[in-house]
């Protein structure tokens, strides 16, 4: 097990600077998620940890030791690739055995460890098959077994669930998480799916264009997003963002006025759909779309400030398209950002208009 540290790590591909300056600590035994949109440098960071890419600058430390120059094969890192990267010409057994081949593990012990790893991810019956004869979920488990069999000090998962169907994704989520609890190995998960990150990780590192936007627990990112980007990225359906101007305790957006405390000037207000509800008071709008989502119903409400999404609990559709409604929220659930710097203004709130 290891504690991971990035100190001013940068990565350039030719003239393109993919990661300008990364500072990050991942504690021993932690389950961390690198979350960000496609192309933001998540895999690149992961590959630097694995030793596949050499950092262009800065220091990478495992347990306080500089590992920049340490070769991939000496790092004892288990990695599950997005494509699983199983060796197509080998049986599942040989695939899982492969990492032990280079460790000079005695044959008996190696086979026992393969068996144990296969049992752990429940692929014991598949040991004699070829990867091409496995389903996506089974391949994913085999890749996991191969990463775990060498007892890695660090487990890296590069979008391991993105090739699975929805229900399998759900069950693998729980399985990977319980596997982590069982083994306690420091784990870094890369994903662009915020639900994956929030459900599995202890801590989320939200990235944007090679920079870390915010590091925190899932709750931190949800309740106190430090920037507009994080607020927009975390939460599903996405947060409603209303830009306008605050002056003398009143926030005005396209003619709608909200009482505001703690902020003035150009601000953007974030209201999560699940924090909005229909009521007697509030800002007015007309329902234009209804999307039942099982346990919740999503309404799209056309207001003076544009379309606003409202999420109501329960499976009962109590409203109709075209209905005039008023939308309200609790002030502590509103998030206020500086429009220009895109940063959260801590302690500022807006209130439902009377």
């Amino acid at each position: 097990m290891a504690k991971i540290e990035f100190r001013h790590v940068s990565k350039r591909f030719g003239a393109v600077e993919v990661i300008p300056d990364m500072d990050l600590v991942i504690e021993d035994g932690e389950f961390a998620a690198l979350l960000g949109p496609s192309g933001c440098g998540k895999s690149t960071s992961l590959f630097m940890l694995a030793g596949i890419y050499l950092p262009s600058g800065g220091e990478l430390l495992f347990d306080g030791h500089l590992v920049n120059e340490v070769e991939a094969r000496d790092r004892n890192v288990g990695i599950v690739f997005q494509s699983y990267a199983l060796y197509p010409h080998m049986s599942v057994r040989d695939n899982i055995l492969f990492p032990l081949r280079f460790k000079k593990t005695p044959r008996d012990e190696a086979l026992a460890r393969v068996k144990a790893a296969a049992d752990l991810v429940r692929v014991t019956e598949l040991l004699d098959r070829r990867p091409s004869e496995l389903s996506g979920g089974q391949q994913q488990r085999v890749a996991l077994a191969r990463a775990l069999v060498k007892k890695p000090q660090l487990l890296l998962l590069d979008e391991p669930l993105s090739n699975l169907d929805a229900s399998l994704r759900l069950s693998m989520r729980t399985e990977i998480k319980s596997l982590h609890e069982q083994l306690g190995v420091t784990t870094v998960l890369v994903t662009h799916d915020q639900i994956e990150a929030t459900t599995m990780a202890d801590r989320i590192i939200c990235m944007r264009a090679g920079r870390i936007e915010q590091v925190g627990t899932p709750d931190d990112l949800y309740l106190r997003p430090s920037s507009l980007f994080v607020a927009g990225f975390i939460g599903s359906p996405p947060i409603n963002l209303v830009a306008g101007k605050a002056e003398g305790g009143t926030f005005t957006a396209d003619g709608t006025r909200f009482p505001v405390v703690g902020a003035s000037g150009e601000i953007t207000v974030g209201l999560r759909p699940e924090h909005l509800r229909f009521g007697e008071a509030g800002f007015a709008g007309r329902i234009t779309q209804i999307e039942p989502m099982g346990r919740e119903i999503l309404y799209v409400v056309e207001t003076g400030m544009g379309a606003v999404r409202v999420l109501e609990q329960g499976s009962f559709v109590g409203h109709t398209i075209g209905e005039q409604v008023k939308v309200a929220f609790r002030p502590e659930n509103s998030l206020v950002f500086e429009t220009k710097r895109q940063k959260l203004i801590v302690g500022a709130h807006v209130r439902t208009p009377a």
Partner: protein
Amino acid sequence: MVTQAAPAMTMAPSEPEIDWDSLASRARLARRTRAVVLYAFLIAVSLPIILPYFWLVTIAFSARTGVAETAVLWRSMAVVVPVIVGFWLAAALARNRRQLWFGFAAVAAVAVVAFALLVGPDLHLGNFIFLWEPDFASVVRSRVGEVKGAVQFPNVWHAFGNSILIAGAQTAIVVTVASLAAYYLSRFQFPGRSSMLRSLLVLHAFPVLTLIVPMFLMLYWIGLLDTLFGVILVLVAFELPFAIFIMKGFFDAVPWDIEMSALTDGASRRQAFVSVVLPQVRNGILAVAVFTFIRGWEEYIFVFTFLIRNSNWTMSLYMYWVRDDVMGVDYGVVSAVGVFYLVPSLILYMAAQRYLMQMSVGGVKG
């Protein structure tokens, strides 16, 4: 919309009844005609390809010294042409797998019987005298009363060995160098990479014959003229560019991931190449190997120019001199040498057919 649909509805009953049966039989007839035309075309095209080889084999096993007789050829043709037509017909008419096999078996049985009756009595192995009699030229000539002037032939097995050596060594070198070079070209960025790739193709576009004089001078100065090694080097040089190009395609198709995965699994770059990447391009290596071997096996121009001593003769030179020396006396022996020369490439092609097919695909199979 509604107003347009109404008249169509009212017109429907007045239309004539559709005769599904006649439509079906018309389609059936058209399909049959197409098949017949197709098969006729295939027969017409395949005959000129099959016949020369067939004649070569028939002559090799039936011609006799000093006798210019073609009757047996016509008789054998009288068997072969109907047999080919029979096979195509069986294939065209069979409605399922069993009928197909039954048809093939019937045609084959008839063919064997007819062949045994019409051609069988003329068959003999005498033309393969060169296999056990190195001085066969004198023997053959003495049969027709000529006693002098025969070329001193080396043992045919010696020429056979030389050919195997040239083709084999060339194949080993080309496959090894091409794999390594192609892997590097496929995986690493370095200055001049794209121009190198382009030049690989350009090199292949030159007619190699144009270089024969400079090559001769070069070999002469290096001191490799009239050595097998010299020829092997020349052949390797000419075969390499295309082999590298083909192999690069195969390496390009191997995903990066499995290589990176091998590296993190504790393999060195070399171990990853050998244990993970190479097995993915196995088919490519086999295809390149087979083509290179056959190219070396049939090589004629370079061996003719660069090899002089008859102990360095390859099969193609042997064939050339046999034709030069005994053709007028005994074309049966010439054909027999041809058959002997043909057999190894034939066996190789048939054994490797499955892999050669993949060359055009150039993909990785799981």
